[in-house]
């Protein structure tokens, strides 16, 4: 094999590390996207028995978004197997106890239920905020775009943009509670 072709071969078959920012993204959509990259379904050389999956680092897991009232209304259930062992917990409580649990559960369930699932799940690294260990960060070479186009929050606007934004009425001391 010639010099250029050997390089191409190495590049095609190497295991790539991706990073994904979960800020204001839906938990289910992240599960679908991450499981796709971890199995290797984004590569035209994919085969279920050959090891073509990549690593994915998910960052800001604490800041995922649920639409509607799901934080209060969505309930996660479990049973310990003993008597009176049914556990029911609302989504916001689960998120308080372990901020990475919801995302990890979604990703695990999207990976197909076979003997490869646990190995592939070990290649998913979820962190609640932006503090990623240096050993993992030095491997990352690619950025993934989340499934939802992120809307701009009030904290993203600069002071100049806020001042120059058109106002409907001027603030008057008479109309404001002091």
């Amino acid at each position: 094999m010639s010099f250029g072709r050997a390089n191409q071969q190495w590049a095609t078959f190497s295991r790539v590390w991706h990073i994904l920012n979960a800020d204001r993204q839906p938990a289910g959509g992240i599960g679908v996207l991450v499981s796709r990259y971890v199995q290797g379904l984004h590569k035209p050389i994919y085969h279920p028995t050959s090891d073509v999956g990549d690593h994915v680092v998910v960052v800001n897991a604490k800041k995922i978004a649920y639409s509607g009232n799901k934080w209060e209304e969505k309930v996660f259930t479990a049973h310990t197997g003993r008597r009176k062992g049914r556990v029911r917990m609302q989504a916001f409580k689960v998120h308080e106890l372990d901020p990475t649990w919801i995302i990890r559960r979604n990703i695990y369930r999207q990976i197909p239920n076979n003997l490869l699932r646990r190995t592939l799940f070990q290649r998913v690294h979820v962190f609640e905020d932006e503090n990623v260990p240096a050993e993992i960060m030095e491997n990352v070479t690619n950025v993934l775009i989340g499934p939802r186009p992120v809307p701009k929050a009030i904290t993203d606007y600069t002071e100049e943009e806020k001042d120059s934004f058109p106002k409907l009425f001027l603030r008057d001391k008479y109309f404001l509670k002091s």
Partner: protein
Amino acid sequence: MFLTVLNMARGRFHGDRWWKVMRLKEQCQHYLKRSLRNRCGVAYRHLRRALIHQTKGRRLKVYATNILRNQRLEAACDEHEIGHRRFKRGLNKSGVTLNQHMLNILSMYEPRTFERLVELAERTEIETVLGVHEPLPERRFSANKINI
């Protein structure tokens, strides 16, 4: 394996049972258990099951390869930033009758050809459906693109 046709034919038609056993054993030589390599009654059961699986598997293999080829084509279209349905529609309209197998090979080994096919599909759809020649967006060839 039998070195002469005479030997092969000998065990088939009411011949010596030894030759029949030999014909069975040559299928089972790769089995790991010693009992399966030497005891023909036990080996016959395993071999028969294996051949039944192979017969049934011929249809399943076609089913599985179709699924795999579709997954690979979707991945290739994703790399080139086009929807896979749009790609197939455009190719159909322009009269390109490459099947999934060939498209997979092109996307793996002939990436620049595949890029031109994607462009052909897009242009065909724009020109036949909209009837207008629109300029296509600038295209970079790299996987996992980010729009900055």
